[in-house]
C-alpha cells in the first residue's frame, strides 16, 4: 500500500517534470504551469479550509497582492525577479497577518464574509491606485532570468516550488500541528482541553497561507505576463475554495486532484467549450451529492463498501501494571 503510493507519486512527479519534452503544444505546458501555480496557493489554503475548517473564500485577494507586488517590484523598481518572488511571499504573509488578526475571531460565515470583503477591497484598490498598478489597463510583468525564461524552464521552476510547498504542508499535516488544526476544526472545546492555542494556531496557518498565496501570485503574474484587476475576479477565490471542497477535507492529495481536474476542465471538455461552466457546476453537484467527503476519500469509501471491516467488539480490559509503568515513567514527575 505504502510502496504503491510512493510509486504513483514518483511516477507522477517524473511525468510532470518531463512534460516539456512530451507535451503536444505550448498550451498544454501553460496549463500544467497554471495548475502548479494554483496549487501553490491552494496547498496553503488547504491548511486553512481543509484542516482548520476556516472558510476563506477571499484568497484571490492575497494572490492579487502577490502578483501586483511582483509586477511593481520587477517592472517599476527593476528588482531581481528572485528577490521580488521572496518579497511577494513576505508581503502575502504580512497581509495574511493583517487580515487574519481581526477576522479569525469571527465564527463560520462571518469569517467567510470578511475574506470576501477583503478580496473586493483589493480589486478596488488596484483599480484606484492607477499610478502604481496601471489601473484598469493593468501592468505587463517581466519573466525570470535564464534558464527559467523559456516555457520549459519556467515550468520546472513552478514544479519545484509546488513540490516544496506540498512537502511543507504535508509535514504540518502529519505531525502534531496537523492534529491540533483538526481539533480546531472539529471541536474547539477539545482543542482547548489539550492546550491548543486556538486563535494563535489559526493565525499562524493563515499567515503561512498568505505566504504561499503571495508566492503563487508572483509566479502567476509572470506566467500570465500581463495582469489587470479583471484577472483577479471574485470567482477565482471561490474556485480555489471549491477545489478543496471537491478534493475533500483533511487530505492533501484530494485538493491536488481537485485543482488539476477543475483547472484542466475547460481543456478536457474542449469540444464543448461553451459548456465548461456547466460541467464545473455538474461536477461540484455530483461530488457534493455522491461523495460529500470529497474525491480524496473515494478510495477509503469504496474499500469500506466492498470490504466492510468487521468491527469486532471486545471487552475493554485494562492492563494495570502496564498503565502504572507508563505513568511512573513520566518525565515530569
Amino acid at each position, binding site marked *: 500500500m505504502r510502496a504503491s503510493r510512493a510509486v504513483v507519486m514518483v511516477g507522477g512527479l517524473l511525468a510532470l517534470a518531463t512534460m516539456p519534452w512530451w507535451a503536444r503544444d505550448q498550451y498544454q505546458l501553460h496549463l500544467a504551469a497554471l495548475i502548479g501555480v494554483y496549487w501553490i496557493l491552494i496547498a496553503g489554503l488547504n491548511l486553512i479550509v481543509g484542516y482548520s475548517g476556516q472558510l476563506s473564500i477571499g484568497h484571490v485577494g492575497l494572490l492579487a497582492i502577490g502578483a501586483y507586488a511582483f509586477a511593481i517590484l520587477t517592472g517599476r523598481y527593476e528588482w531581481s525577479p528572485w528577490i521580488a518572488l521572496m518579497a511577494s511571499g513576505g508581503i502575502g504573509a504580512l497581509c495574511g497577518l493583517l487580515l487574519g488578526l481581526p477576522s479569525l475571531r469571527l465564527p463560520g460565515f462571518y469569517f467567510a464574509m470578511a475574506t470576501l470583503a477583503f478580496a473586493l477591497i483589493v480589486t478596488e484598490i488596484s483599480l484606484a491606485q492607477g499610478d502604481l498598478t496601471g489601473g484598469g489597463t493593468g501592468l505587463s510583468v517581466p519573466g525570470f532570468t535564464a534558464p527559467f525564461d523559456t516555457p520549459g524552464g519556467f515550468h520546472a521552476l513552478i514544479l519545484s516550488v509546488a513540490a516544496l510547498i506540498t*512537502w*511543507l*504542508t504535508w*509535514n*504540518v499535516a502529519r*505531525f*502534531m*500541528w496537523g*492534529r*491540533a488544526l*483538526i*481539533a480546531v476544526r*472539529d*471541536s474547539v*472545546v*477539545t482543542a*482547548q*482541553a*489539550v*492546550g*491548543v*492555542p486556538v486563535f494563535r*494556531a489559526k493565525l*499562524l*496557518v493563515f499567515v*503561512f497561507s498568505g505566504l504561499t498565496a503571495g508566492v503563487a501570485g508572483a509566479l502567476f503574474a509572470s506566467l500570465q505576463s500581463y495582469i489587470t484587476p479583471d484577472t483577479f475576479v471574485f470567482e477565482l477565490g471561490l474556485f480555489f475554495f471549491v477545489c478543496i471542497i471537491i478534493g475533500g477535507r*483533511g487530505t492533501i492529495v484530494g485538493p491536488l486532484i481537485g485543482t488539476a481536474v477543475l483547472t484542466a476542465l475547460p481543456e478536457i471538455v474542449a469540444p464543448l467549450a461553451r459548456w465548461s461552466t456547466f460541467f464545473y457546476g455538474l461536477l461540484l453537484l455530483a461530488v457534493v451529492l455522491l461523495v460529500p467527503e470529497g474525491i480524496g476519500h473515494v478510495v477509503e469509501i469504496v474499500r469500506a463498501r466492498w470490504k466492510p471491516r468487521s*468491527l*469486532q*467488539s*471486545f*471487552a*475493554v*480490559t*485494562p*492492563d*494495570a501494571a*502496564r*498503565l*502504572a*509503568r*507508563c*505513568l*511512573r515513567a*513520566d*518525565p*515530569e*514527575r
Partner: protein
Amino acid sequence: MISLAAKTVTKVFGGLTALSEVSIEVRPGEIHGLIGPNGSGKTTLLNALSGYYLADAGRVTLGEADLTRDSVQRRAFAGVARTFQKPRLLPTLSVIDNVMLGGWPAVRSTFFGTALSWLRARREERTLRARAEELLHGVGLAQVMTRRASLLEHAEQRFAEIARGLMASPRFLLLDEPAGGLTPHEIEQLGVVIRTVRDAGIGVLLVEHHTDFVFRLSDRVTALDLGRVIRQGTPAEVRHDAEVIRVYLGA
C-alpha cells in the same frame, strides 16, 4: 504537596447562583468524589476548575500558583487534564491520533519548524507515538488503536478520552461522569484504571451519579446541593450524613 483547590468560588448565571462559595481541595494521589443531585453544580465546579468557566468570586489555585484568571489552555499546561460527560474525540482521526493530541503540552516544535520537518518535530512525534501506544495498551484499547474514533463504542470512547487526558502527564485528572452509560463490568474496569492513576500520584476528581461507585472508590467525598457544599469527608461520613441522605441518597 501541590493540591488543586477551589477557594470560596461563586459562579452566577443570570439570576441563578450555580456555585455559592464552594471550597474543595483535590490532593495528589487521592480520588476525590463529587456527588449531588442534578443541577447541584458538580459539572459547573469541574468547569470552574478546568477553566471553561471563570469564577465570579473566589480563587482557583494549584499549589502556590493562582489559576483563577487562567485560560483552559494554561491550566492544561499547568497539569490539569479532564474528560467530558459526552466524550469529545475527533471523529475523523484514529484512536491513537486522538490520544497523541493529548500530548500537546509536551510539544516544543514551532509551526514553521514542523513544516520544515526539523529533527525535533520528528523526534517528538516518535516519543509521543510510543507513549500513546503504551497508554492504549494500559487502558485496554490496543485492539482499536488504528480505528477511526467515530467507529468506537461508547465505553471505548470513555477509555480513549482518559488515555488522552493522561498523555500530557497531568498532576490532576478531572473526570466528568466517567461511568455514565457503562455496563457493570466496564465500570469495574474503569475502577481499575482510576485506582492505577491515583496510585501513580495523580489527583483524581470524580464527578459521578453512580454513588456506589464513588463511595467504593473515593478517598474523600464532597456532596453538593444547590451550589453549596453540604458535607465533606470520608465516604463513610458522607454516606451517613443526615443532610446528604435527605437531599440525595434518599432514606
